[in-house]
């Protein structure tokens, strides 16, 4: 289980720096690690969400060549918060998961921007939101929907095979 979790977390980070460019739409690439963190937090709770967010964010920071710790912190907070409040939300509905992923992507983007302000990030908030955060959040929603469907199908297949 731990191995598959690690594979999921680091695989997401590696996929972000390699495969994401192949599935870009225009200049927009999805945030695959964030999608993985959100789905893990929703299913495994705040601790796994926090650790997954930290690990994948840290990995992404290092591989991306930016400030190490920014994404680790924002993704860890995202994973923890979602894992915490996930129990109070109707998160078993795939639609809620997808919409939640879009909203959380935006929140994570805003949080990252705020954190970057301490390190004199030069980008304008409006431009960043319009050209990066919002399109990426929508794309994350699409990727999340695909993942939710894939997981539902996998679980159905597993249940079917165990019933037999």
């Amino acid at each position: 289980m731990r191995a598959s979790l690690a594979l999921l977390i680091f695989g997401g980070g590696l996929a972000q720096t390699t495969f994401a460019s192949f599935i870009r739409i225009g200049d927009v690439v999805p945030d695959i690690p964030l999608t993985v963190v959100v789905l893990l937090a929703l299913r495994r709770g705040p601790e796994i969400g926090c650790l997954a967010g930290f690990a994948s964010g840290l990995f992404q920071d290092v591989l991306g060549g930016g400030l190490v710790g920014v994404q680790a912190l924002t993704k860890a907070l995202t994973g923890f918060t979602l894992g915490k409040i996930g129990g109070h939300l109707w998160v078993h509905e795939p639609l809620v998961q997808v919409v939640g992923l879009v909203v959380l992507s935006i929140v994570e983007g805003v949080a990252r921007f705020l954190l970057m302000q301490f390190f004199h990030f030069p980008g304008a908030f409006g431009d960043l939101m319009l050209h990066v955060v919002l399109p990426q959040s929508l794309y994350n929603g699409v990727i999340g929907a695909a993942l939710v469907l894939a997981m539902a199908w996998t679980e159905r297949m597993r249940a079917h095979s165990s019933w037999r």
Partner: protein
Amino acid sequence: MRVRRVVLLSSVIAVCLVLLTLQSRGRGALAGQAIGVVAAPLQTVLTKVGRGAVGMWTTYVDWKAFRAENRRIREELAGLRVEALRVRETEEENARLRRLLALQERLPLSTLSGEVIAREWGWARALTVNRGAADRIIRMTPAINPEGLVGRVVEVRSGSSIIQTINDPASTVGGTVQRTRTSGIVEGEPSGATRFKYMARDGEAPRVGDLVVTSGLGGLFPKGIPIGRVGALIERGSALFQYAVLTPEVDFQRLEEVLLLTGQTAVDLAGHFPGSG
């Protein structure tokens, strides 16, 4: 459980802040370098795999598109071939009918066009046309086409007629060599050939290439309709009659339409046929 969560979150936040602080003070590059050393080969492999997958997918999509296009072009080509055949057929038919119509308008007697609907090519040589008693066709009506004489109607039915062609063994037509005015009889042969039987040593002898036209004697066929050209002369010693093998002007194998001469005329029709004279 709750304490554990708080400790975990606090630790994560603390680690991140320490990392950020170290970097803002110019340290912390070592950890990044260490992870980079491990991750770089993996990234290289994954990128190659990704490019390979994209390349394969692109190749597949291209191949599929080419195959679909190929199939579409083949179908289009087959359709165009059929269309071209149809157009050529229509063009040929159009040309034939134009010539027939031109002849019909040139001739100084009433005519009726008929379409060949059947052929008899064995013991007897005959054509069936889609004109019959309903069209006031009677027995012995001459049939021609723009090249010359086809034959005569030997049997009339309500909606069709049977024409005995001039190469039928039972067919005899009075003919004249146009150049020498030598008279004789054109007969069919069982082999499908046509011969011109004429009086030997009566005036100038025919030559190969001479045109034989209807003589008009007997009143059945109007005068001057081309029958055929002399292909060979056959001398038979002192026989009274000599023969010339004729090559009919009409190609019976390809005959599609005929003109039935429903009226009579005493005028020499030779000038109305392009190949004569």
